[in-house]
């Protein structure tokens, strides 16, 4: 599927608006996260070094795949992978993501925030063509050198744990569409997070773990996409085990 000229232009305008306003909104958003909510991320130093290394060593597309427990995960993961001023200087490293439209279209300020934060809203369970169009726009931006973030489970983990058998294929489709695509698996969880929720508790302390991989499959079609998704979910499940083992 080709991305229409109008869509390409809209994405590039969105990216430029976010980038130009970056020196204002990125540090402000991180300040809110730290001082208003009191959230801290442990282990972000190593994650940031690995993310910067992956960005530096190759021009191949880079996709971040993570577990999903709250509606602010994409922002928390971005902050775990880079400092505010690093993103101001390397705006292409700030991941594009595809949040559920309903969750972020309720107020004008949420719509503005998602716009500058490189979000391409999607209506989950909506018209298949529209979902496909959203994925193609996402793939287009990754192909241009920007980073993307996807939650391979397709939504927040309802059991509070990774489901390695989740029947989603979007992430596999993205990887298959981008030859040489590298994946950085990120597992981020608060010490007090037992289940999924809208937002983490105030003062939550997160620990982040990560692993790189280049998923491959010989299978074609949707079966191949599912196989890639399962490889990524298996790696995330392994990180989850590591996360809980380290807590004991």
């Amino acid at each position, binding site marked *: 599927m080709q991305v229409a000229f109008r869509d390409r232009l809209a994405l590039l305008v969105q990216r430029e608006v976010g980038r130009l306003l970056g020196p204002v909104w990125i540090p402000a958003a991180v300040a809110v996260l730290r001082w208003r909510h009191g959230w801290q991320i442990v282990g972000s130093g190593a994650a940031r070094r690995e993310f910067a290394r992956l960005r530096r060593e190759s021009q191949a597309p880079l996709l971040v795949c993570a577990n999903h427990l709250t509606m602010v995960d994409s922002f928390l993961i971005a902050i775990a992978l880079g400092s505010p001023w690093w993103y101001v200087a390397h705006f292409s490293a700030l991941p594009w993501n595809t949040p559920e439209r309903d969750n972020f279209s309720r107020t004008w300020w949420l719509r503005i925030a998602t716009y500058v934060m490189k979000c391409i809203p999607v209506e989950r369970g909506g018209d*298949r063509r529209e979902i496909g169009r959203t994925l193609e726009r996402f793939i287009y931006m990754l192909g241009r050198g920007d980073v993307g973030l996807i939650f391979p489970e397709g939504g927040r983990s309802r059991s509070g744990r990774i489901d390695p058998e989740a029947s*989603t294929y979007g992430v596999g489709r993205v990887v298959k569409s981008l030859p040489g695509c590298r994946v950085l698996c990120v597992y981020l969880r608060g010490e007090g997070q037992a289940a999924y929720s809208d937002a983490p508790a105030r003062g939550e302390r997160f620990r982040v773990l990560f692993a790189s991989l280049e998923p491959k499959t010989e299978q074609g*079609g949707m079966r191949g996409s599912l196989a890639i998704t399962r490889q990524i979910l298996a790696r995330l499940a392994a990180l989850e085990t590591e996360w809980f083992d380290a807590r004991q």
Partner: protein
Amino acid sequence: MTEKEAFETVVKIITPHAKNPAALASAKMDTNILDDLKVNSARLVDVVLAFEDAFDIEIADEEVDSVNTIGDCVRLILAKAS
């Protein structure tokens, strides 16, 4: 394979995933799989893979984008099978 045969097989494959039995009982070509039959969108992958196995075809990710109704499935399968 006729359109009727493909339709019947498609309905049979969708049946375990449909949460609206009334709509399933009166399913037609224009019945929407997600909205009318209330099939969970996450189960769509299982449905498509079952189509691949049942009709011995391969369906590309992009082709799934055009699938909303039972008729969309039937037309896609007949085009692939031919």
